[in-house]
Structure formats: C-alpha cells, structure tokens
C-alpha cells in the first residue's frame, strides 16, 4: 500500500476550479489522474464534475475530457474504448468514465449494466456525494436514509442501493469501494485497476459540504468518520476475491470507532432524524459491517 507521503506530486489537476469550497472531488481526482499518469481520456456526464472542469474556453484539468449526456456515461466510455481500438490507439490511454451517484445508480445504470455485461475495457468511477448535488441536493437512489434533501423534506425513508454489490453481480474483474478523503486508497485502487483489462468499477464516497451541510474545513474529518462508523467501507473485489483495505481493514481488529448517531450529528442534512431511524440505520450498518468482516476473513 502506498503511503500518503509517497503519493506522486502531480500536475494534472490545476490549482483553480469551479467546485464549491471543501468539495471532495478535487482530492479524489488528483489521485485518480496521478494513478493513470495522465495517460487517459475521461467521459464526464452532466454533474458536479462538469462544473469542476470549468467553462469553455478554459479547463481546470490537464487530461483529455469528453463531455457526454447524463444517461450515457458508460456507453460513452464503451465508444471511446471501441474507437481507440479501431484506430489502433487503445494502448495509448486508459478510458475513465466518471459520474456521480445519480448519474451512475439512477439514470446511468442501464448503460453501465450493459457495458459491464460486455466487460468493455474501461474504468468506471462513481463519485458518490449521496444526492443530486449539482442541481441543488435532490435525493438519488444512493441518498442515505434519514437525509433531508429538497425532494425529501422530512428525511429520506429508504436505505441507499448498494451499487458496488450490483456491479460485483456482473462478474467484472475489479470492484473497488473507496473514499476521496483517503488519497492513498484512491491511488492504489485506480493504479491496480489500470493494470487490469475489462470493466473496472470503483465507488468513491465524496463528502459534500454544501449538500450535507457541514463546515467546508471538515471534509476530510467527516469522510474519515463515515469509514470509522462503517457507513462507508473500503474494500476491493479482484476476480471475485474480497478484501478490506486501508482504514476499514484496520477497524476489523478494533471494531467500528463511531456510531451512526455520532456521525449523523455532524451534518445538517440529518437534523430532525428520529431515534428510530437512527437505530434502523445503525442496524443496517452493523449487518453490512459483519458481512464485510466475514467475507474478508474467508
């Protein structure tokens, strides 16, 4: 595992961008582009990442970037891969599709499932900020239970869908679950995925100060707390072999270091969440965590 101090000093993401203060995308994207050494082409749908990239004629990222329609990200990546193969440039760059949770798990899931079934040759990275943040915080299929959004005013009632598990069920060669606030975990997973062919899926939890309602200085702190609480779990599945990674692996010995109640208390979006909902989410987290630990051990 790469130590944080050994991460490359990269220059693919420029110092200025149009993201909100404290946005987790930039932390993740620095490591993603570094792990691919800039030898890449991105497919980016309408999302916070579009805003991050800047408006014509300036750009905040020094890698080829193709903007694509909202539901089309995975198919767009399939087309980039097929096109590069057809013109003999498939080895020149890695195709990286990068979309948000709504763009991946809701409107984009059909194209993604098709590409995964075909095992098309690209990395799909979902940066999960847990709602439609670019349009102003509407609930997505990945918004956690209890979270207030502008379409769930009294808190969402359902748990988020488990996208990495859905992708694992497609029997693709690599599935990773990471968090933008663990740069070395992001770097290692993208670097590992880069060396594999076929469809590689990486799910990256990405704290969002504006949508989650917390102080922008706390992005890393909250992202780490999500892992300590077991709400977010760092793991990878390589050719069907499951293992916990990084902080989540370390938690196996010591147990989860935060409760759901402590985690939700840090964010305005969970204001008014009832004790019953909190307890239900805690049960959901505990069940999932036990399953991950058991899979890691076997």
């Amino acid at each position: 595992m790469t130590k944080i101090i050994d991460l490359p000093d990269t220059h693919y993401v420029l110092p200025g961008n149009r993201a909100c203060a404290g946005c987790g995308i930039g932390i993740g994207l620095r490591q993603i582009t570094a792990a691919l050494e800039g030898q890449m082409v991105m497919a980016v749908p309408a999302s916070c990442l579009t805003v991050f990239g800047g408006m014509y004629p300036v750009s905040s990222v020094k890698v080829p970037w193709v903007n694509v329609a909202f539901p089309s990200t995975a198919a767009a990546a399939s087309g980039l891969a097929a096109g590069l193969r057809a013109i003999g440039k498939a080895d020149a760059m890695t195709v990286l599709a990068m979309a948000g949770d709504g763009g991946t798990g809701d409107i984009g899931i059909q194209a993604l499932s098709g590409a995964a079934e075909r095992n098309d040759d690209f990395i799909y990275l979902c940066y999960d900020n847990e709602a439609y943040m670019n349009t102003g915080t509407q609930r997505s299929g990945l918004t956690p239970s209890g979270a207030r959004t502008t379409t769930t005013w009294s808190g969402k009632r359902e748990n988020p869908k488990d996208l990495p598990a859905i992708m694992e069920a497609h029997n693709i060669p690599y599935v990773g679950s990471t968090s933008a606030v663990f740069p070395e975990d992001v770097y290692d997973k993208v670097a590992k995925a880069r060396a594999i062919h076929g469809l590689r899926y990486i799910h990256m939890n990405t704290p969002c100060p504006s949508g989650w309602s917390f102080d922008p200085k706390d992005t890393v702190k909250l992202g780490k707390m999500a892992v300590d609480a077991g709400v977010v779990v760092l793991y990878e599945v390589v050719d069907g072999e499951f293992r916990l990674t990084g902080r989540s692996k370390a938690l196996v010995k010591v147990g989860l270091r935060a409760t759901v109640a402590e985690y939700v208390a840090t964010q305005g979006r969970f204001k008014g969440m009832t004790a019953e909902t909190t307890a239900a989410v805690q049960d959901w987290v505990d069940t999932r965590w036990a399953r991950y630990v058991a899979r890691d051990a076997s």
Partner: protein
Amino acid sequence: MSVTTTVMAGNEAAATAAKLARVQVIAAYPITPQTSVVEQLSAWVESGELPAEFVTVESEHSALTVCITASTVGARVFTATSANGLAYMTEQVWWAAGARLPIVMCIANRAMAAPWNVLNDQQDSMSVRDAGWIQLYCRDNQEILDTTIQAYRIAEQLNVPVMVCYDGFLLSHTMMPVEIPAAETVDAFLPARVPLTIVDPADPRNIGPVTLADPRVDAQGVSCHGYMEIRALHHQAVLDALKVIPAVDAEWSEATGRAWGGLTWEHLLDDAEVVLVAAGSLGVQLTVAAEQLRERGLNVGVLGIRAYRPFPADALRGKLAGRRLVLVFDKALSYGNEGPICGDIKATMSGRPGAPTVFGAVCGLGGRDVSVEHLVDAALRAIADREDGVTDRPADWLNLHL
C-alpha cells in the same frame, strides 16, 4: 474494376454501403424494420470480412452514444434505427449534431407508437428534422447504397451528421437489383477520415464543456465563441450542404455513372402546371400517377425531395414558381398543423413571384396502403378545387375510413 449486380433488400444495400465505406465502429440495437442491417454487419464483422468494432449495446440511446464518442476519437462510425428507437436516442441525435460529428445513420422509416405499428411512414425522422442533421430520403435500394456512401463524404466534409432515410418494408425488405461498385471505386471516392477533434494526453482538450451565451476569453485573452456563435456556425454548415450534396452526387456520377439529382429530382416537370411532391419511395409512385394524369390530358409532373434538411428552398422556388398548383404528399404530420414538407413548401413559396397554390395531402400513416389510384384521385380532387377558385384548404387524408 468489377461491378456486380445483386438482387437485395434495402437493408442489405445499407449494410453493403457501410462495409464499402470501411466503417470502423458499428453500434446498433435491434428494431423492426431496421434489424437486418445490423444482423448483416454483425455477420461480416464476425467472419472477419469487415474489420470493425461491433458494440452490441443495450439500447438505441447507447448505440448513438457509442457512435458519438468513437467518432470523437476519430473513427468512422455507423448505426441504423427506426421509429421508437430513433425517438429513444433523440437526446443523442441532438448531441451528435451539436458536437459536429460526421456520423452516418440509416433510418428505415416506421410509424411512431402508440399504438404499436411496425409499418412504414416517415413520422420518425421528420420528428427530428430540427436537430441539426442532414436528412436525405431515398427512392429505391440502389439509391440507399449510393446515398449511404455519399453521406460519409458529405458528413466528413462539413462535420455534420447525416441520416439516410428509406421507407421501412417498402424498401428495407423489398428485393430489387442493386449494382455494387468495386471497393477501389469507393476507396477513391471516399478516402480515410481526417478527424477534427483531438483526443490525445499530450495535447489535452476539454471537448463539449459548459459554454456560456456570450463569447468568453481563454487563458491567452483570445475571445472564443459563445453558444449562439457555435449554433450559427452549425446552421451555416448545414446550409453549406446545399452545395456539397449536389457536388458529391456529381462526383459519384463520374465514378459510377449514377446520379440522384442532388437536392431534388423530377419527372415530367418541364411543362407541368400541376406538380406532385413527396420524399422517398412515394415519389416513384407519383411518377406513375403523373403519367396516368398526362394520359387524361392534364399537365402533371413530379418533384421529389431528396434533401429535406437542409431544405432546398432556392431549388424549389426555381422549380415551383409559375406553376398553377403544387400538391404535397406527406407520410407524416405535425399534429394540429399539417404535413411537414407541405408546411415547409408553403413557407418557402410565400410572397414569391409566381407562387403557386399549395395543397397538402396526408397518406400512408402506419403502413396504410397508398395506391396509384389514391394518388390520381387526390390529384384530381386538388385540381378540381383549384379550378373552383380554392387557394387554401385542409390536408386531404388519403384512403381514410372514419
């Protein structure tokens, strides 16, 4: 160079053209009546006869998406669809045009649901006429083959995508002799694509980002186009096709001996007082109707629309001014208004010297039979109305039984 003549259906003519054009990426999803185009291409790719990537996508939306991004990296791409498939990819129809990608898509024209109907009319492609593509309509299977090859030349010269439209079943599944040009002939006519877009890590570009309404300066202080300038340039490129389509057709004629009239075609038009107008195979039926009407002593001719977008306004003004009556047959409808070609011709002729009376007729929706007798009767009704002094009237619905 060897030319072979084979009896084939329209869909096979389209597939043969794509193969002769040496397409590099094909992505398509099955829908009646387009399906056999991609079945044929898939077989050629699998056998190695056509060295191309064939992406078996999970929907039409993804089919055009794959074409969009494969075209962005520089590949020559092909897809085909019909009706609801075209409607499902509509978002990407706009994207392909706005991104200025030289995609060629065949449309086996079919009626739109609901209710379900797999038979022919032209409502599908007419419904996306405003999306910024070039639209060419074919009369027969030879024209499908020739036009699909021509479409790549037109698209790659202008960086505008082209729809090659032909009537579902009437052409897509009807066998007729088709002359297949030699590969060397097509190669000389259609050289390898030189892409405009650049996807290269050594020269990173952000392609298609958010673009503001107004021009904006780049990092070097140079003013770059806003959205509206980009749209104006796109419009100009589509209009430029008014010159490019006939020029490419003329060059094809030199190479193969076959020309298709460029923007429009005509039959018995010179001295015609009454002109019957249609796009696609319906135009061929109109030629038979016109000949029968001539036998009755009526000076009737036919004007066929080959290029519907760009709309050949100047050509039509030249050919229709001074006529007594123009009767436009549409296999599509703008509900609450009239047939799309009829409306466009009325607007084109409005206020012009010698503007004829223009009547519309709606026919063949959902595969409703259109016989030469129906067309002759419609023409006689229109001529009688005109003789009675009528200068405007609602569309005449042919073979309708309410």
